[in-house]
């Protein structure tokens, strides 16, 4: 994935101010940033959900805005803060995504069953997705993104609201996927997960990329959290305020 000078303004506010990022093929890339840093906006522009005011996004060499069909066919997305078609059941939702991707029905059935079993969502579960717990919704969203075996996965906050067991399972799936040659880009504000999984990281704040590169290079001899706080700024301790609490 290659982003070149992406800019997005909302009304007068500059949400993303020229982000350029090279994600090497086969890497596990973590995008870090505090709330409101522009992570979701950047990823939305990268996958074709939000039209950038300037700049361009190449996915595996295909421009997502000039040649969306080719780019999107090779891409799996788990957006954050976006509803699924949640009045379908889990199996129905996977079937829907599979057929929309133009896959043949037999393959969809076989993969969907396998994903539902592995993610412990139940292949015969007839609960509507709207009644799923937050963690289950993340898992079914991930299953939808994986179904067509894309070469690039863009995941926005994949570990938010996921319980520890499921998180370990998702980590394992993603690690195997990268080992098999896939590329993962995901955003998070949980340092531990990024430190454990990623080989590359980028730190964003106020719509600007502050640091990016291989994990060891960014981290140096400090912990990732120390680097993050140092780069982003902000206070991490209280003084004499809140004495009434």
């Amino acid at each position, binding site marked *: 994935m290659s982003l070149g000078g992406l800019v997005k303004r909302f009304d007068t506010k500059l949400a993303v101010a020229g982000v350029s990022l090279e994600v090497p093929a086969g890497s596990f890339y973590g995008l870090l940033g505090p709330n409101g840093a522009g992570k979701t906006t950047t990823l939305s522009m990268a996958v074709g959900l939000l*039209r950038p005011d300037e700049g361009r996004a190449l996915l595996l060499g295909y421009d997502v805005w000039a040649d969306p069909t080719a780019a*999107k066919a090779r891409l799996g997305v788990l957006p954050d803060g976006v509803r699924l078609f949640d009045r*379908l059941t889990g199996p129905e939702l996977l079937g*829907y995504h599979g057929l*929309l991707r133009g896959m043949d029905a037999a393959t969809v*059935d076989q993969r969907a069953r396998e994903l539902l079993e592995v993610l412990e969502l139940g292949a015969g579960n007839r609960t509507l997705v709207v009644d799923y717990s937050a963690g289950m919704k993340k898992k079914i969203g991930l299953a939808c993104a994986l179904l067509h075996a894309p070469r690039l996965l863009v995941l926005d906050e994949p570990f938010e609201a996921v319980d520890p067991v499921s998180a370990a399972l998702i980590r394992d799936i993603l690690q195997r996927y990268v080992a098999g040659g896939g590329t993962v880009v995901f955003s998070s504000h949980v340092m531990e997960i990024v430190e454990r999984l990623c080989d590359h990281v980028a730190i964003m704040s106020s719509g600007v990329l502050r640091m990016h590169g291989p994990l060891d290079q960014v981290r140096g001899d400090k912990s990732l959290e120390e680097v993050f706080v140092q780069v982003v700024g902000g206070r991490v301790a209280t003084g004499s305020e809140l004495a009434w609490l």
Partner: protein
Amino acid sequence: MTGKVGAWPFVRLKLRLTANGLRGRSSRIALFVLGALFAGFFAIVGYSSFAIPGVADSLFAAESALPLGGAALVLGWLFLPLVFFGVDESLDPARFALLPLHRRTLITGLFAAALAGLPALATLVASAGMVDTVARLGGPAAAGVQAVGILLGLLLCVAVSRAVTSAFATALRSRRSRDLAAISLALLAAAIGPLQLAALAGAQRADWDTVASVSRVVAWTPLGAPYSIGLDVAAGRAWQVPLKLLISLAAIAALLWWWSRTVESAMVGTAGSSTNRTSASTRSPVDLLLLRWAPRTRFGALVSREIRYWWRDARRRANLITFSIASLFLPISLAVSTSSPGGTTIFVGVLAALALANQFGFDGTAYAANITTGVPGRVEINARAVAHAIYTIPMLLATATLIAVLSADPARLAGTLGLLLAAYGVGLGLVLPLSIRAAYALPDTPNPFAMSSGGGAAKGFLTLAVLLAGVVVSLPLQLIALFTAPVWLWIGLPAGIAYGAAGYLIGSGIAADQLDKRMPELLAAVTPNR
């Protein structure tokens, strides 16, 4: 720190939300201005109509017109939100659930906020025409009493609309009671239908004494009571005034009490009943999704998903139910009042298509899935239209049958169906591009009648404008049908299908092109602000 909270903060919050909703969004401002123009138009027409009896100096005419006109206002407030407009839920009761507010404070506040809006203002101005009439007939004292009356009438209108929509929303929300709600809605409409028929039949005979006696009865019901008290003073029956005031106040109090009950359940019960269907299915995922006859392709998946959504989504279901009732009762009422139900046919056909006016708004952010999978605009638009037609065409067939039976002329069935299909096709042709250019976000509340804040009425008026346009575009066919009546029996169905198909093809082509160019913009338009 719990001070006394009055109604004023709620009104300010509502106005502030409306203003913020408009800020910096020129399309919304345009819609709002349009809505204001319509409201102003309604206010002027209403005022002058209600002032006519006074100008004509006819107490008799006034005694017929005022209570009946007032009752029409109240009924309008009752039904228009259900069918067309939705309720402005910018102050969603659920948002106040965590605040330490008494139920009485909350209801007073929400009620006051509901009064602060264009529709209420327009109604007030329109009914002020009654004060004008009463002043000419009975002098300042009578006019003063009537002024109190129209204020009470306005409170009644708003209370009726709030209480009924809130009750319906509560009923339709839980999946378990949806069937019950559908039945009660049908019963309500069934009760209105015959009443309307009787009124129209009466009006047709143009017997003014009958109208006057109906009006005298209506004046003693809550519908007409507040609007008739000024006249009572003018006619020297001042003793009736306290009784009618009592009737009106009791009705308002009862409605507010009912509303507060349903609001309370809306505040606590949003989680809904998760009927966990444990019986696991052994069918494959694709078979579960697809309807039996649907092709195992992208198109089949889209159509099947849409069909399931028309039933599973409370908003869409409410839409279908209200349309099916309207499609049955409009032809009945108009067939009885006039000899030619042709105008109605076209109206019903276009009305059917209106359900798709904000089809992407129903999906909300879920539409992102179709963007990331790269569904072409043409497939998307056609699939959605097909899914809707699968529900609509049987209903149109039922309407056509009903009209043929009512007019005691079964041979008309084919021709009428032709007109209906033509109007439906033309309506789709108009509505589909609109659904992409004028999509708007629906709030994430489970209330199927809720609209987002800001220019809610304006959006309703926009759909009304489309309705009018659809009727106008279908008019040529209507005229042909009228002039070639004997031949129309034979060519009606094919000609209607051809006309409708042409309308659909043009409109859907435009819509598909626009969708291909505007997918991200459309997604942004239907994303609720958080």
